């Protein structure tokens, strides 16, 4: 039983499932929603690295997402750069701005950091909204190109885009996995645990926090660039606080500080909100309480809940086995 569900097999199974999905579903709508969910996931992974593993909750994440999107949009539409150079440059630009923000923002802690970044996010949004000369203001940017073909591979069909985004998502997960399970990740966790302690262990907290922050903006930038090339229209709304809230919800529902949380949370919530569409105007009437209930009854997110249940199950099994053995011995 357990062997079939070993971590490795589950991972491989999921990847195969994701790869086969377009052929099973054969539905543009599902493909579209799932592709978009993958893009959100990438952003959520960035948020999770910072909030879940380093202990700093940034509320500017949608802002950086928007910077990534606008960087790609402006480079391709206004600077008429080719898609691929722009796609590489967009996350770099985001990261650069993230670096500048991080240097200052990371001087603050806890709620101050959360609210500081909230304000940074809002300022990014307002700047995009008001700087018409550059961003087109409320009109947004129209005509962003789809990913350019790579040699013979065309990336303009929905299926091709799906695979393109999936590939990047898998890369992101791999990178995150490696970071978390390496010394770098352990350093982040040490900082989350106690900054004073980390400092006196010789860890440069400033450097590492900045690294984590910059990485998180990098992933936000990647996600933003993918979004821009997928939807091919962007407006200031994608930098809005609501998007940050969405990402936050995906992360919390999935399980903050866990590796699979972003996937689980994003899929669940996206699925839910699509399915509550029949309620139309009033879907938030259901969705809001549902969200609250999830948080109340599964505070460590779905993944934390399952993990807890699983450990309990293992414990109980152990007890059962022991009892069984005892009984056997008695017999």
């Amino acid at each position, binding site marked *: 039983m357990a062997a079939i569900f070993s971590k490795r097999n589950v991972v491989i199974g999921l990847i195969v499932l994701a790869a086969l999905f377009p052929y099973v579903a054969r539905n543009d709508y599902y493909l579209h929603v799932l592709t978009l969910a993958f893009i959100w996931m990438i952003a959520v992974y960035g948020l999770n690295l910072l*909030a879940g593993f380093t202990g700093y*909750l940034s509320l500017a994440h949608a802002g950086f997402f928007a910077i990534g999107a606008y960087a790609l949009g402006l480079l391709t539409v206004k600077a008429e750069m080719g898609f691929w150079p722009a796609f590489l440059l967009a996350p770099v630009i985001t990261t650069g701005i993230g670096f500048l923000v991080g240097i*200052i923002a990371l*001087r*603050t*802690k806890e*709620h*101050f950091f*959360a*609210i*500081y970044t*909230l*304000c*940074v996010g*809002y*300022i990014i949004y*307002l*700047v995009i909204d*008001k700087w018409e000369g550059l961003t087109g203001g409320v009109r947004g940017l129209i005509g962003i190109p789809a990913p350019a073909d790579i040699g013979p591979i065309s990336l303009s069909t929905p299926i091709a885009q799906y695979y393109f985004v999936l590939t990047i998502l898998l890369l992101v997960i791999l990178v995150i996995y490696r970071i978390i399970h390496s010394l770098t990740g352990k350093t982040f966790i040490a900082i989350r645990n106690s900054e004073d302690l980390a400092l006196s262990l010789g860890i440069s907290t400033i450097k590492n926090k900045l690294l984590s922050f910059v990485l998180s903006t990098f992933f936000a930038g990647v996600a933003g660039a993918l979004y821009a090339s997928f939807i091919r229209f962007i407006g200031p709304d994608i930098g809005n*606080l609501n998007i940050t*809230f969405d990402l*936050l*919800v995906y992360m*919390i*529902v999935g399980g*903050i500080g866990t590796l699979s949380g972003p996937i689980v949370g994003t899929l669940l919530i996206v699925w839910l909100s699509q399915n509550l569409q029949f309620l139309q*105007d*009033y*879907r*938030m*009437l259901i*969705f*809001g*309480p*549902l*969200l*609250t*209930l999830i*948080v*109340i009854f599964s*505070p460590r997110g779905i993944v934390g809940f399952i993990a807890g249940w699983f450990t309990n199950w293992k414990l109980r099994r152990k007890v059962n086995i022991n009892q069984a053995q005892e009984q056997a011995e008695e017999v």
Partner: protein
Amino acid sequence: MDVLFQQLFNGLTVGSVYSLVALGLTLVYGILHIPNFAHGALYMVGAYITYTMMTSLGLHYVFAIVVSIISVGLISVLMERIVFHPLRDSTPIQHKVAAIGVLLFLEALAHYIWGADYQQMVTPYGQVIEVFGLTLTMQRILIVVTAIVAMILLYLFLKKTYTGASIIAMAQNREGAHLMGINTNKVAMLTFFIAGVLAALGASLTSPINLVFPSMGHLVILKAFVIIIIGGMGSIPGAILGGYILGFSESIGATYISSDYSDIIAFVLLIIILTIKPQGIFAKGEA
């Protein structure tokens, strides 16, 4: 010169409302240690209830406000009981998400009950008064005076009564307060009640000079967060002062800098303050 005075008065009006909302937020922050994102929704509901009392039941503006602040106070208490009380031992991030859930719900509910349209609240105090070249309306004077009276009362309550002090005590150490014989449940409910009252009062006072609509709480709440940071999280005088600082800097900023960017002022102000003093201006202790 006239413009300056007129704008100072405008800033005073807006600042009064900001302060009221921020006060509730900062009180709840003190107990919960989290920013209650749903506070803006209480603000909005407060305006709607006053509006409904006036239009459907034909109550006088003042009585409508009384009904509204009590109802919103109770809704706020209910929110504490149903959502935040069960979450009392969990992390701040969970509070935030739960509060977002409540916010979405209340907005959808308002949308459901009152529709998405703008509603108009008519004040009996619409008279225009000219004093020393300043244009005031009775409503605006009412806002400023009521807000200041409410704040003084609150301050006296917190500082001079044991019940008030128990709120502050609980904010600092919940179990400690419990061990002193303070019924922490009651205090939490009381705090939420006061916060709800202040939000509803602020909303009911401003609605006649603006309109009532489901998303009316959005920016107010964001600014209230800025205020409580500027004023020091959980600090009562800080919230009051912060509200007025923001009110004035917006009206003055819109006049002498740029009105297109007047909304940014609050946020830039905060960024500057936190950049210089990462713990906020009124933060105590620490090197």
